[in-house]
């Protein structure tokens, strides 16, 4: 896989750090891994895209789907993408930024 996912937990907040590239080849696996790892006890999910060097419309599909699903379950979602990072640009271009909170760092 050209992408790695590392999960960390802090109370009821689950953070997923993604590193690598998300594209047509692996976006389904990424979505499965993320959804499987989120339990209904979480109150907030953060997806850290700081180390994502490439994400295209397939990757966006994953983020949009996650947004919809977590909203339904009343679990909060935050995306982390530094200014001018590949992920940030794509998020802004796609209009996702108006649906979900996007932070520049994990702090």
């Amino acid at each position: 896989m050209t992408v790695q996912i590392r999960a960390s937990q802090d109370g009821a907040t689950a953070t997923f750090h993604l590193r690598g590239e998300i594209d047509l080849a692996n976006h389904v696996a990424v979505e499965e891994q993320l959804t499987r790892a989120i339990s209904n006890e979480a109150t907030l999910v953060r997806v850290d895209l700081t180390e994502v060097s490439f994400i295209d419309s397939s990757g966006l599909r994953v983020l949009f789907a996650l947004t919809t699903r977590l909203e339904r379950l009343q679990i909060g979602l935050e995306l982390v993408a530094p200014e001018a990072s590949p992920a940030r640009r794509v998020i802004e271009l796609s209009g996702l930024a108006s649906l979900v909170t996007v932070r520049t760092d994990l702090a």
Partner: protein
Amino acid sequence: MGVRTASSADEPTAEDRLRLIEGITDVGVALQDVEDVLTDLLDRVCEALGVDTGAVLLLDARSGELVATAARGIEEEVRQGLRIPLHQGFAGRIAAEKRPVVLDRVDATTVISPHLVARGIQSLLGVPLLEGGEVVGVLHVGTHAPRRFTDEDVSLLQVVADRITSATRPRIAASERQATLALQRGLLPHALPDIAGLGLASRYVPGGGNAVGGDWYDVLRLGGGWVGLVIGDVSGHGLHAAVIMGRVRSALRAYAIETRDPADVLSRLDNKLQHFEAGEMATVLYAVVEPSLEQAHVSCAGHLPPLLTVPDGESTRFLDLPVDPPLGVRLGFRRHATSVPIPPGARLCFYTDGLVEERGTPIDVGLERLRATAGGDTAEATCATIMSGLVGSSILEDDVALLVVERLAVDEQAPLELRLTAEPPVLAHIRSAARQWLRSTGADADEVDEVLLAVGEATSNVVEHAYGPEGGELHVRFERDGSTLTVTVRDHGRWRAPRGTDRGRGAALMEHCSDEVRVDRTPGGTKVTLVRTLRSIGGGS
């Protein structure tokens, strides 16, 4: 069954025996392999001595075991891979003590081989096979009926043993060398990968005689446009060194895709080698080149320094790198990684000591000769010049491995053309190649990212929509005219409208990241042309 005595009429005479022994050396069947030659010899031995069984076991020095290699009358010893540890049992004793042994009682207390007992062998005579005073194996013969082997029998068998050793050793060396070469050819890259922005060339020449084995080189795509360059030398010679080299090479690749820190890769490799292959040693030099090709990060484990030729002023010098211990020596210390700038047009030569070492001459002489010889217009020309200057027509004792890497100057940059099957995994390859090519145009990171995004969408479309289940070809071409970049993405399938829900973002991304997007649909396929002015590189090439 009666006891046979020495004066029995059907036993061969001394004359017969001599003739048969001489016959053994006439087994000039050059094309037979070792087992066949030995089996043939054993036939004659059994006849000459009037015995029922014969076997040859050869010593595997590394494991300290005798391996049944040929047998007559007890073929199962060979078929079942019988191994006798030195010092144990009958054959083990002969090898350990380097002298003949006669057994008149054959049971589990005196022999290890269950086959000897099962066949009802009652008497055994064995002698060591010696070469230069060292044991290389054991030859033994046995009889179903009890027999008193005489001193004459022993001397005769000893003579046979000598002849066997001299007849078969050259064959064993040759077949081992064949195996090593085959293994090594299988392990070394046949063709170097095509990496945009880099010129690559290499040579591997096995040393004469037994000196084939542990040298290797490797060029690795690490994902995201990073490139790994490896040169290494496992200690020792022959098949064993080549096998260890295969493992080290493979393990390095595994660690290389996990971390881009070359010191970390070598430390892990060291750990693995010492854990699983204790006692083995290797020198390795590993360089990780950034996607921009601007610099490489190098870690050196006891290996000779690479040569760097810089085009401005044409200076050639050895890299001044900290030299950490080779792999396999000790653990628990920190390995170094050094950043080395690589200007456009610069060339790096990685090599093994076989290229510069000559018996009786200090190594600095060879190194200086390399430095003075390394020159040529391309990586390939440099390889050829070095090999003819340092190797010429001599047969070197040691292997030589040579890898030359050139960072192509920007104006030498040819268009990037890729033809691949339209499947999801190729998208990452395209990005990797494109990233390097784009960076070597001098475009900055942001522009590169946007171009990759646009191209990614166009290529993903082909993978998803252009073909039916049988698939088809995806053809991508990048070219630059001054600061204008043109990318064409072609397929020869049939265009169809996007399907499913939650789609349509791709086209918007493509439009946003390009100055112009043209889509030409024909019955023969679709061509998407993306044009963009690379603002970060200004005008002109």
